[in-house]
């Protein structure tokens, strides 16, 4: 184990090139629905126990299945209302289990990126070949079922190895969602090729808000609006990114959906917001800012060389 994987260099908020988004938008706004399959009785990973209760954990399993049977449809209808295309963090096996959901996303021209094969298979202790096979499977399966070349990855259940970012870059992926350290994209240090991080906020993540912080739905809507207001204000100086990661099994419950609907209406009601997808943000950043940020990092490192 290491104290730090050295995945990025320090470049503080105050010392960066200014980002300008298309049409001078202040905030690049993207919504990332997690469309996931959780298994009832997956194999055990020695580093982490999956379900809180002994198998079958009916409560946890069926809670998640609600998203697939009921929730995604409700969420799609709300997002349609405000012209928001989803960037889907996809359990790739769901292509096989529930193709009807995939079809509805394709019709909406939503982006698919990989969230592993199942959210119940953890990468802890995986070999390099095993980890690479997850991404190769993801690339091939999404291509086959949707025609899309995946650009991003959010590790299943946020389970990583020291090699995750290198393997992504090697396989030509554009962005990772796994680093929660910034409100802008930034270059990730990889052995070969290029990779960037784009913000995928755990603070705005419905599961964290509802199940970790136990926030009431209308307060969640307030949090979303406050987060947006601040990033929009700061976006006058340099473009920011706001992501709302969602799980239909949480946000699409009847008692929670209305509050989210109101927050989405508020955010998309501004004309200086770029309502976009993960891939589009990544592509724009590579085309316009990647090199400039790499230079800025070099200059900053020279001026403030780390002593440890």
């Amino acid at each position: 184990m290491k104290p730090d994987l050295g995945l990025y260099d320090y470049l503080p908020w105050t010392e960066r090139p200014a980002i300008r988004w298309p049409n001078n938008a202040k905030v690049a706004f993207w919504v990332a629905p997690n469309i996931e399959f959780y298994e009832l009785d997956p194999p055990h990973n020695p580093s982490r126990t999956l379900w809180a209760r002994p198998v079958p954990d009916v409560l946890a399993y069926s809670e998640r299945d609600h998203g697939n049977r009921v929730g995604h449809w409700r969420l799609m209808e709300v997002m349609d209302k405000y012209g928001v295309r989803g960037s889907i963090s996809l359990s790739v096996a769901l292509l096989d289990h529930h193709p009807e959901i995939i079809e509805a996303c394709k019709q909406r021209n939503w982006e698919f990126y990989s969230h592993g094969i199942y959210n119940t298979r953890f990468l802890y202790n995986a070999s390099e070949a095993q980890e690479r096979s997850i991404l190769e499977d993801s690339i091939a399966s999404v291509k086959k079922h949707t025609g899309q070349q995946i650009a991003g990855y959010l590790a299943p259940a946020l389970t990583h190895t020291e090699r995750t970012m290198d393997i992504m870059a090697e396989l030509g992926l554009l962005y990772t969602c796994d680093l929660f350290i910034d409100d802008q994209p930034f270059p990730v240090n990889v052995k070969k090729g290029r990779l960037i991080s784009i913000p995928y906020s755990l603070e705005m993540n419905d599961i964290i808000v509802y199940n970790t912080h136990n926030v009431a739905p209308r307060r969640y809507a307030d949090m979303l609006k406050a987060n947006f207001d601040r990033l929009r204000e700061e976006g006058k100086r340099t473009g920011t990114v706001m992501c709302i990661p969602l799980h239909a099994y949480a946000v699409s419950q009847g008692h929670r959906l209305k509050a989210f609907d109101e927050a989405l209406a508020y955010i998309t009601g501004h004309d200086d917001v770029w309502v976009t997808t993960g891939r589009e943000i990544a592509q724009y950043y590579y085309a316009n800012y990647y090199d400039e940020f790499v230079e800025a990092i070099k200059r900053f490192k020279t001026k403030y060389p780390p002593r440890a």
Partner: protein
Amino acid sequence: MAELPESYFKYPLRRYGMDHDRYDWSLLVRRKPVSWPNNARIALWIVPALEFFPLDMPAKPFRAPGGMQLPYPDLRHFTLREYGNRVGVFRVMDVFDRHGIQRVSVAMNSKVAERTPYLVEQIKRRNWEVIAHGVDMGRLHYGGQAEAEEKALVTESITTLRNLTDQKVRGWFSPARSESANTPDLIAGAGIEYFCDWVNDDMPYAFRTKNGVITAMPHQHWLSDATIWFGYKQSGEDFIDQVQDHFDVLYDEAGKQGGRIFALTIHPWMSGQPHRIEFLERALAKIAHRKGIWQATGAEIFDCWKAQQ
């Protein structure tokens, strides 16, 4: 750390549908619309839970929410829970009476029926449906439990409740929604027709068991007094807002997709406190008097749904 075996990343159940055979994969939005009596949009299913948390509860393999937390004898939590059966439930009944909520299903541990015949008499007098809610909150059904041990619990719960309430007892709700892999088979074998543990749908669906097909009824878990107040520690007003918002979403959806079910569990040990009862009453007042409501028991909703399948 040893590397994972190759089998860890093999997926024998990666296929169309579910990763088990208990029920079919089905999108709610694609199902045949269901009609309730008088073209109601919402079947309103109110379910008070009458529970006994024994002072010596085994808490195996985990402690049910609301269970004892302190060294024996934990009179603090024991009496707070018993408060519901002694005082709280009568406040809840008053609220029902004031808002015309008459068709009620009570989820009852069989120990409560044995310990408090007075409550059984009240339930009979009010003609409430009794749903078997296991033996008590200390005796859970769980993965790894010996089948004979679990079968004895199922039999004790259902037989006791049938004997003491003179009802058929058609519904089942596991304590703490905890099941073993055998639970659906065992309850179906005991003559149960519907159960309330699985929270994956907003409408009923068919569930296979070794003893025939039973019905999984949608029974909200994340929106109940115990989840909102005891679990999340949210405010009284937060509970009212969520009841209102849930109702509105289901009501709108019912206008487009056919009848929906609003199931609300009420724990008298939580809602029946003097400072909370007002919030329960205000929440129910917002939904119980709406047009397009069919106030019904679980068995009545189940029968109505079943007749349309």
